[in-house]
């Protein structure tokens, strides 16, 4: 196979991450115990390097390379940039937690980097094969990460559940892909789109394939009724891993939806629109209502993730460019908020103590008013209250569905968001109105303290001035 150098140059970030992940794998085997810091530093370096390569090659034009398997377009650049940012922050947040639990090993970083590589490939795929490969690379790394705490029964159970259901979903997806391949004779998204546009193919057959694909996508996104794995995995996995799963892969899942439904199957948009409306209503409803009943904050945030998946789909289902922009904005904002919330949970955890009950947040305002304030910003933002960033995320998807004529859906969405506001407010209630159960001081490294403060204040500041983020997202489509 002859690949010109110019094409390889487009792939540079992916190649770099792959090489560095292998290097860290090797290094971590040979370095002595006291030099473990090196893994962390190398991993961070990899993320920074990948960011430099990706952003250094952002011309704004679309390039398709590797026999039209790999696409380098504005959407992939923006999503990758945020994936890097989130992975970098996740490493930073997790460090103390991993050290306290003897998980601060090469494996965590290697697996995370492989997962990141999988996301990079998914984001840049324009061929069913690359999409699937990226997805599997991400999923397999995540299964292993969930199970990393070997002697934790809960984590092992979560990993098994995740693995089996994940494999099932991948199977569904593959089945759908194979059907589309059988009908249209192509695996390339652009060609597929062109073939469907010609209109010579029986719609029924295509929709049959589409349904399987949507089932697979809905599973990966955690949309109801394919959400069963999500609460267990969020709760069972070590919090540092939950943090990782809850943030960056959402961006990848968004791109998965975009690549499949918009790039490949835009000809069937009236079919998938109807399916997405149902999925979205169910997700918003079930996610927000069941979250109320939770006592474990990780599990509560898992249901919150399900409901957010519902809101995220609202923009896509309008099948307009502005709608995609709105959904992308939503996804990015959600990933940033989720990262911050799990960051605060990590902050409250200590060696031998997992801050995962809601009650662990009791009286946080008395123990540390600053972190309580940060958590309040994050929770209000998740609830979609102005002037936080989360408000503008909800705003933009709602605006798009109102524009497309689904006013009733917008009304439904806001009513569910009021229901959802209850459990976010409950966290604020616990922090501000209740007496603390423990008075232990909260200790954290300086870098963690700064990062979490920036994360929280960023949500507030970007909420006051969301212009920049809107602009980034609107340039993509």
């Amino acid at each position, binding site marked *: 196979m002859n690949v010109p150098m110019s094409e390889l140059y487009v792939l540079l970030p992916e190649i770099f991450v792959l090489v560095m992940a292998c290097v860290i794998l090797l290094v971590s085997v040979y370095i002595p115990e006291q030099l473990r810091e090196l893994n962390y530093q190398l991993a961070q370096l990899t993320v920074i390097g990948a960011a430099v390569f990706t952003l250094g090659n952002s011309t704004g034009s679309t390039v398709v390379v590797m026999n039209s398997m790999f696409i380098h377009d504005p959407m992939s650049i923006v999503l990758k940039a945020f994936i890097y940012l989130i992975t970098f922050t996740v490493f930073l947040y997790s460090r103390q937690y991993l050290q306290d639990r003897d998980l601060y090993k090469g494996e965590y970083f290697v697996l995370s980097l492989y997962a990141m590589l999988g996301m990079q490939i998914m984001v840049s795929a324009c061929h069913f094969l690359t999409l699937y490969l990226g997805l599997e690379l991400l999923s397999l790394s995540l299964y292993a990460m969930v199970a990393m705490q070997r002697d934790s029964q809960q984590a092992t159970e979560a990993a098994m559940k995740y693995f089996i259901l994940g494999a099932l979903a991948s199977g569904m997806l593959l089945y759908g892909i194979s059907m589309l391949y059988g009908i249209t004779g192509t695996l390339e998204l652009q060609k597929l789109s062109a073939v469907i546009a010609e209109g010579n193919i029986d719609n029924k057959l295509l929709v049959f394939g589409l349904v399987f694909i949507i089932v697979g996508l809905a599973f990966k996104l955690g949309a109801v009724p394919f959400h069963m794995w999500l609460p267990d995995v969020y709760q069972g996995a070590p919090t540092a891993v939950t943090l990782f799963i809850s943030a960056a892969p959402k961006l990848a899942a968004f791109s998965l939806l975009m690549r499949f439904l918009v790039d490949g199957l835009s000809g069937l948009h009236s079919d998938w629109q109807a399916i997405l409306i149902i999925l979205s209503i169910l997700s918003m409803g079930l996610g927000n209502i069941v979250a109320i009943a939770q006592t474990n904050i990780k599990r509560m945030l898992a249901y919150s993730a399900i409901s957010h998946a519902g809101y995220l789909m609202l923009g896509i289902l309008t099948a307009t460019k502005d709608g995609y922009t709105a959904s992308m904005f939503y996804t990015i904002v959600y990933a940033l908020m989720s990262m911050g919330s799990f960051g605060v949970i990590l902050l409250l955890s200590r060696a031998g103590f997992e801050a995962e009950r809601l009650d662990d947040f009791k009286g946080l305002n008395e123990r540390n008013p600053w972190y309580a304030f940060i958590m309040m910003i994050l929770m209000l933002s998740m609830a979609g209250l102005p002037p936080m960033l989360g408000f503008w995320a909800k705003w933009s998807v709602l605006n798009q569905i109102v524009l497309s004529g689904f006013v009733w859906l917008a009304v439904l969405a806001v009513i569910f968001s009021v229901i959802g506001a209850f459990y976010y*407010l409950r966290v604020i209630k616990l922090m501000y109105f209740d007496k603390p159960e423990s008075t232990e001081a909260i200790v954290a490294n300086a870098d963690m303290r700064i990062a979490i403060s920036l994360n929280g204040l960023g949500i507030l500041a970007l909420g006051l001035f969301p212009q920049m983020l809107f602009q980034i997202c609107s340039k993509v489509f």
Partner: protein
Amino acid sequence: MSAELPLLSLLIWLPIAGGVWVLTQSKDSEDALLVRPIALTIAVLTFLFSLPLFFSFDITTASMQFEEKLPWIQALNTYYHLGVDGISMPLILLTTFITPLVILSAWEVIKNRPAQYMAAFLIMEGLMNGVFAALDAMLFYVFWEAMLVPMFIIIGVWGGANRIYASLKFFLYTLLGSVLMLVALLYMYNQSGGQFSILSFHQLNLSSTAQTLIFLAFLAAFAVKVPMWPVHTWLPDAHVEAPTGGSVVLAAIMLKMGTYGFLRFSLPITPQASHELAWFIILLSLIAVVYIGFVALVQQDMKKLIAYSSISHMGFVTLGFFIMFAILQNTQSKDIAAMGIEGAMIQMISHGFISGALFLCVGVLYDRLHSREISTYGGVANTMPRFAMFVVLFAMANAGLPGTSGFVGEFMVILSSFQANFWIAFLASTTLILGAAYTLWMIKRVIYGSIADDKMETVGRLTDINARETFILAILALAVLFFGIWPAPLQEVMHVSVMNLIEHVTRSQ
């Protein structure tokens, strides 16, 4: 016009910045007294800065004054657009007037985290000024919602025994109303070709179904805030559980936001739907006036009684707004219609003073005996004569005694209602009896009489109000009397804007 200084921005951001600064002081000076003077200085400064709004206000024009317009989010075409007219200016003054008093009233009373308490009130003041000054619908919405957070915290942290239930109920109730308004705003944003200017919404040509739906969405938001029967149930809970300052701000200012919303959004944007559904609002208003008046009569808790009395009085305000259509139909006289609306607006301001003062009075008693039950007291006048004088004055004002500000607004509304329909006016007038009944009966049971033997240990040992409390109540008493005797300046300020509103509503029907 003194357009040199961005006055409105100052009124919004000075208290907010001040509040944030006070918040940062809380760390090592939890019990330091310094935060109180700082907070008070900021609040007083804000009040002083708001005075030019009144004194250099041009009463001959209905257009927006003290305007500021800066691009905010270009991607959405929203602006940081502020401005006041005769409708919003008095409400801003009310806000800046009440806040220093609230802060002063908490001086020695709030011992638990005073810095956060003061900061919450300052930040809330800025946000409330923002609601009244915003001319961009998105900016309005952001202030409108953001304001819930400090109030939620105030009720939840410094409130009474059942504070958590009350604070959540308050928050979710109001949120549900406002999100429906958000959908309506988005709809209009798309209808108006992508802009959020409230003034351009006024010019929209909406179909009658769209108008009705938008009107109902606004109604959901504003009716909860006012609050109108039957969505008023959060108010007694919130009032009873909130600390004194919270109740004062809630009653004096926050309720006015709902009625302000009717004037700024519902009436001018959906005139046709307002006309068609006016009977419905009038019906709800009369139920509030009469039925809630009876409910107030049977309350055992002083704060609850005043809360119900607030709902009843706010019924007058919505009645005054929506009676306009019937008046115009019967008499064609815009002056009489204007009298109804102006009366309602004077009632808004006056109710701000009176209900605020009454809650402060209950607060004075609560600070001493930690009970709000009417039955705990009796014969307070014997031990607190100075206090009794003030309470009786405010009670009289609440009952609508001529010479107090409570009389002016009610009288104007009733007078104009007679031009619309005798029975509406008749039912509205029952408030003069009911209001007198529940207020004076409470006064009789709490203030007058001799101290019962079993209360010698409690009521018998009450100390009269100190200089600080006297000062607060005296200022409010002055305001009540001033506007009762000479309401002209208030009416002058409103008149042109109200006439303009009526012109607009009749023209676009």
